[in-house]
């Protein structure tokens, strides 16, 4: 057993590696979480890999090195947790995910089952549902005129369509949103944000587990598809329940954030909304640009499973490495004029959905939801204008808005 004195925030304390700049910063400071751009650029400026003594972790933020570390599942594993807690040395707050927090070969099996359920074809079948709900919600917000787009569009759309897509019989929209926030906050340190989010874990986690049971799912949904993979012997029934839980952990708060951030972008850059109205074919690449610019998931960690190196810097086994996706997505060496929102950029290779074998398995669903909602707005809305101050919400893993007052001006 490792002595507690050697532990910090659930992982082993490491010595500052030779050759890595030391930066006395708290990446989970609420001000940084709400407005991370300066943190991102300083992280990139300091070097390929930076040591942060506050949590005794390494951090990468330049595009190439972030992409390399994030994708190198042999040296930098996910099975020891994708937050600060090292599951080998401390107890996870919930039973670890068998897809997010897993490595090959276990991961290969579960990923294949999830990828099939969430394939482009599968999402295509949901299009009619998405469009129908989008029309109702867009008509409602047009009738209201001035709205807070976070509860009224960004949250409402996914919590309406997503449980139906999964085929859930039990729906508590507050629990669904709060569970996602909890999962992503849990990846950070034991700070006030994480403690606040975890307060309701005792109620929400059992509710989520119960809602993922086979008899609580309709036969036509994505959830039932996962259980059919268990019938076919690809996975066990217990694993199927765990994978359905992954839908709920990763599929709600993230799309809420994607929609909110998209509306923020278009309200801040009205010329880009005009451009999109003129050429609706840019809708899908425009969403990629929203993701690149705003990185809804800003950070995921990896754990060095052996002594290794990052860009020539020695990295000892057990080191936690923050892969700061938000910084990589704004790296000027990769993205010219990175702070500019340009829907014609086509930023293939952005890291908002991660990369490699752990690239977001729900990304087709996210794109499908966005396409339906933004597509409907393109049809019916002439302008999206700020109607007050947008407020960002500190979360240890997600960069999302808390409030987004908008005026929706119809065509």
């Amino acid at each position: 057993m490792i002595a507690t004195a050697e532990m910090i925030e659930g992982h082993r304390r490491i010595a500052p590696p030779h050759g890595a700049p030391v930066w006395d910063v708290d990446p989970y400071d609420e001000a940084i979480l709400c407005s991370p751009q300066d943190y991102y650029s300083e992280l990139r400026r300091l070097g390929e890999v930076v040591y942060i003594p506050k949590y005794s972790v390494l951090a990468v933020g330049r595009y190439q090195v972030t992409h390399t570390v994030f994708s190198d599942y042999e040296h930098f594993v996910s099975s020891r947790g994708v937050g600060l807690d090292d599951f080998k040395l401390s107890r996870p707050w919930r039973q670890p995910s068998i897809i997010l927090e897993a490595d090959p070969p276990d991961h290969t099996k579960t990923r294949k089952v999830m990828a099939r359920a969430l394939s482009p074809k599968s999402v295509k079948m949901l299009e009619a549902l998405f469009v129908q709900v989008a029309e109702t919600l867009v008509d409602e917000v047009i009738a209201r005129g001035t709205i807070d787009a976070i509860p009224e569009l960004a949250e409402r759309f996914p919590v309406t369509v997503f449980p139906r897509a999964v085929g859930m019989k039990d729906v508590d929209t507050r629990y669904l949103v709060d569970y996602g926030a909890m999962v992503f906050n849990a990846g950070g340190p034991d700070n006030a944000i994480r403690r606040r989010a975890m307060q309701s874990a005792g109620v929400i986690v059992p509710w989520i587990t119960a809602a993922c049971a086979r008899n609580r799912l309709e036969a036509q949904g994505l959830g039932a598809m996962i259980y059919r993979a268990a019938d076919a012997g690809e996975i066990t029934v217990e694993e199927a329940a765990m994978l359905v839980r992954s839908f709920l952990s990763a599929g709600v708060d993230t799309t809420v954030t994607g929609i909110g951030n998209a509306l923020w972008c278009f309200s801040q850059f009205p010329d880009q909304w005009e451009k999109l109205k003129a050429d609706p074919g840019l809708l899908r690449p425009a969403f990629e640009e929203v993701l690149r610019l705003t990185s809804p998931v800003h950070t995921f960690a990896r754990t060095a499973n052996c002594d290794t190196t990052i860009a020539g810097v020695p990295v000892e086994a057990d080191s936690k490495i923050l892969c700061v996706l938000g910084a990589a997505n704004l790296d000027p060496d990769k993205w010219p004029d990175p702070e500019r929102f340009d829907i014609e950029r086509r930023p293939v290779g952005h890291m908002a959905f991660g990369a490699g074998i752990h690239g977001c398995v729900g990304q087709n669903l996210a794109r499908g939801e966005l396409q339906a909602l933004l597509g409907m707005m393109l049809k019916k809305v002439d302008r999206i204008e700020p109607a007050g101050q947008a407020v960002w919400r500190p979360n240890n893993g997600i960069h999302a808005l808390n409030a987004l007052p908008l005026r929706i001006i119809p065509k």
Partner: protein
Amino acid sequence: MPQVNFVAADGSITTCSAEVGDTVMQTAMANDIDGIVAECGGSMMCATCHCYVDEAWQDQTGPRADGEDDLLDCASSEVRPTSRLSCQIRLTPALDGLVVHLPDSQQ
């Protein structure tokens, strides 16, 4: 530095220099090849980097990856025995001169 030949649906050929270790998809993106969209960036999630490996090169490019069939099943153009996701073909010196044909649509 291996060369990759992209044959567009209209028959026009673009020859690109590639890096060993890159994928055919990455080579296409780096050279602005129109017939490849690669929406998911290489996570084998989207089937918009679909290509047909020229029959002369089929042995060298090897079999489809585990799970690749499920995605090809979602491709917007016809799937043939030579169909591959170009993000799953990694370039080696032996693939110098590779010829891939592009479908008429990806989405």
